[in-house]
């Protein structure tokens, strides 16, 4: 818990110009998550692209997150796909032409650690749906089943240029449940927001939180108790997986009894669900890598990872990304060793750092967090490029979610998740002026018709620009 004094809310917690490239790649195939324990569709995405005109943005600085920054470049997208990026781009006659003079264009930003929708505003107990703190292992719960699409924090994050989030359960539990990978768009149901084909994540948590929450409620009450809890759960999951895999070979006899908790963990062991682990201390992250090695799964990302810089070499070797803040520290003991160069040091070590928010406020300015982390690194002598820093908030989180072949860069064939900025997004004075999600203009700072408002806000929260 961070300390707030005048609280208005309670917190729980290289760049050369490039020639034009045309789309030749086929439409990217979404990753498919297959489960051998479930022979039917489960809670499918009903996401559909919103039809929108082709759009060409001209004469802007195009930051591609592929190693190039194109001054006075153009970007064309159509039917939800990027068609062309370059110095000269031909556009169809019906395209909406956006004058990008003085503006910057980036991929849509991706936050791989959000509690939007599960800890919705206005922050009452009634919306507190992020921690199923009734058992230290609740792999059976899914964040999407808590997610409230009318959370008024969603439009705020959209206005900050966010196009995709991972909504996670909280960190009270050793194993907190499945995450939801969502397109950040206005919608009536969470199913309409589910990123088609995205794999689920599994939220796990190390350290202080689980032992604090369960210390007087039957345990675990220690870090060794935490570790025993993970091992016990995965040992059961191994046996469960074997029973199902054996039955799936010939379907002889009755299928094994389903166990929702073990079903999720078995999917982790099959590699179909990505493990997202909340962990602060370097020594604990090393222990968690050992746990993953014992049971044969990969940890996709360490989240918060305040001490990742101390073991950046080890994390790079294990191909585990590190999801960090620019400067949060000190709110608890395991967060005491924060340094502002955490992301930069992990980049220097060959790792895959990224900036995450874990905050409905921070998610609105991930670009600023990346800027702070980049310049802190540079001032300390670590030569972070602008493209690397942009990757910290775009394609690196996309990788963490398994979506880096679909979103996170400005390349022909990628999903048209696009942000137009009023200026250099690494300046404190820049704001997102247009946000396109899958080619759809979901936010326009200068047009009230493209400033979505949730049901919650109507008649209750003054509209931007209003003066009641």
């Amino acid at each position, binding site marked *: *818990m961070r300390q707030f004094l005048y609280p*208005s809310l309670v917190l729980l917690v290289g760049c050369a110009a490039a020639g034009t490239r045309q789309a030749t790649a086929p439409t990217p195939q979404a990753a498919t998550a297959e489960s051998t324990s479930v022979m039917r569709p489960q809670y499918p995405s009903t996401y559909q692209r919103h039809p929108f005109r082709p759009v060409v943005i001209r004469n802007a600085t195009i930051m591609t997150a592929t190693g190039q920054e194109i001054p006075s470049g153009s970007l064309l997208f159509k039917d939800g796909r990027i068609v062309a990026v370059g110095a000269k781009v031909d556009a169809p006659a019906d395209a909406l032409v956006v004058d990008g003079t003085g503006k910057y264009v980036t991929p849509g930003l991706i936050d791989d650690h959000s509690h939007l929708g599960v800890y919705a505003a206005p922050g009452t107990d009634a919306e507190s749906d992020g921690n199923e703190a009734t058992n230290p292992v609740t792999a059976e719960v899914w964040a999407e089943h808590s997610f409230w699409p009318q959370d008024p924090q969603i439009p705020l994050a959209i206005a900050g240029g966010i196009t995709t989030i991972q909504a996670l359960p909280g960190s009270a539990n050793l194993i907190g449940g499945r995450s939801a990978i969502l397109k950040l768009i206005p919608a009536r149901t969470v199913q309409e927001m589910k990123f088609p084909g995205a794999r689920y994540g599994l939220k796990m948590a190390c350290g202080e939180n689980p032992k604090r929450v369960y210390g007087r409620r039957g345990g675990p009450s220690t870090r060794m108790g935490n570790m025993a809890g993970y091992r016990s759960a995965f040992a059961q999951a191994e046996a469960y997986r074997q029973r199902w895999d054996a039955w799936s070979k010939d379907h002889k006899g009755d299928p094994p009894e389903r166990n929702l908790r073990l079903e999720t963990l078995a999917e982790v062991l099959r590699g179909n669900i990505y493990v997202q682990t909340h962990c602060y201390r370097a020594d604990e992250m090393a222990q968690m890598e050992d746990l993953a090695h014992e049971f044969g799964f990969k940890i996709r990302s360490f989240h918060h990872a305040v001490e990742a810089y101390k073991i950046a070499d080890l994390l790079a070797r294990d191909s585990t990304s590190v999801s960090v803040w620019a400067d949060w520290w000190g*709110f608890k003991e395991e967060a005491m060793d924060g340094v502002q160069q955490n992301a930069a040091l992990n980049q220097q070590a060959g790792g895959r750092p990224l900036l995450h928010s874990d905050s409905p406020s921070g998610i609105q300015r991930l670009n600023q967090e990346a800027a702070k982390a980049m310049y802190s690194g540079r001032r300390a002598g670590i030569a972070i490029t602008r493209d690397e820093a942009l990757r910290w908030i775009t394609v690196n989180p996309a990788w963490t979610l398994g979506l880096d072949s679909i979103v996170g860069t400005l390349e022909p064939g990628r999903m048209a998740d696009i942000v137009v900025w009023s200026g250099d997004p690494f300046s*404190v004075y820049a704001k997102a002026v247009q946000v396109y999600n899958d080619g759809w203009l979901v936010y326009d700072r200068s047009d009230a018709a493209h400033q979505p408002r949730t049901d919650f806000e109507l008649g209750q929260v003054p509209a931007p620009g209003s003066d009641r």
Partner: protein
Amino acid sequence: MIAVLLAQTIAIIGGTVYPVAGPKVANATVLIRDGKVVAVGGSGSITVPSDATRIDATGKWITPGFIDGGGQMGLVEIGAVEGTREGALRGDSVAAAFNVAEGINPASTLIPVTRIEGITTTLATPGGTLISGQAVLIDLDGPTIERMLVKSPAGMVVYLNEQAKDAGGGSRAGVTERLRRVFGDALEYGRRKAEYSRAQMQALSAGAADLAALLPVLRGAEPLIAVANRQSDIATALRLAREYKLELIIAGAAEGWQMAAEIARAGVPVLVQPLDNIPSYDALGIRYENAALLARAGVKVALLETDTHNSRNLRQQAGNAVSYGMTWEQALRAVTLSPAEIFGVADRYGSLEPGKVANVVVWSGDPFEFTTAVEHVFIRGREIPLVSRQTELFERYKKLPPSY
């Protein structure tokens, strides 16, 4: 060994000075002697003594040290570790006599982390429920509390927001009823101290020490810092200030933009965190433009960063205040001279003028921008080494494996 305090003269030469009290001066010199600013002006107009330590500031920006109008600097080391928290009295909803000064730890690791990013002075504020106690203003340098204090008390903190409700029996109306009772009893106590001592008075609603501590506030000699975010709570604060002739400061003021003209007319200053915009039932109208709209209406605005560990992000708060409508000059004033005025120390702090305390920062550029580095920090004329626990951790781990 006895430390000998030597008269020291420092000349910061050739930069652009933003004195705040007046227009910027290019190619300027700031002369510091014995902890005070003694001269500020164009380099041609100021004679630098031959014994002065000269700092070349060509191409640099020079401002007063920033002042954070909130937080609990020195009162909290680790948020979740109770043994390191000194900022609130447990169980006592009327804690007017509680002055946080002696709870401040001059050795806190937060202090170097904060000051090396240009924040030289902060409020240290009691947290609580109703009347939480006396805030103090401190400079972020010094081995003892006495050497850090700028003003004590700087104001009496009172909560009028949602978190006060329990102390008011569950209703905002109960909060004001109880406050009026306590204020009334304090005045009564002030008039009849002798009878109180002889136990000839009816029972009062708070202890003598707390009532006595309220008297300077009720005389208008000490500001009342009222935490209020909802429009109705701000209106309550203004009403109480009229009734009791209080020197009112509104902290939070999230919905202040909805009644900016009224706040301006009352001459009440506000302490605002620009990057607050998450709606709650305590402030559904909370929005980024608040600081700008208040300033535009003529309200005196000082900025704050409520996350004490990241008080250094006051710079980012100010930059975003500019993004959402403040002028750059207004935002600079809101982190320097305006808070100094609000806390009654503008005779000594908040601008670069002869006679002022030499809290001075040399920046590589615009202090609100992420590209900008802090190059020199002076607090009371002492140059602060740009090191902290965080810089030491970085130095240890910048090459792996580390050498222990």
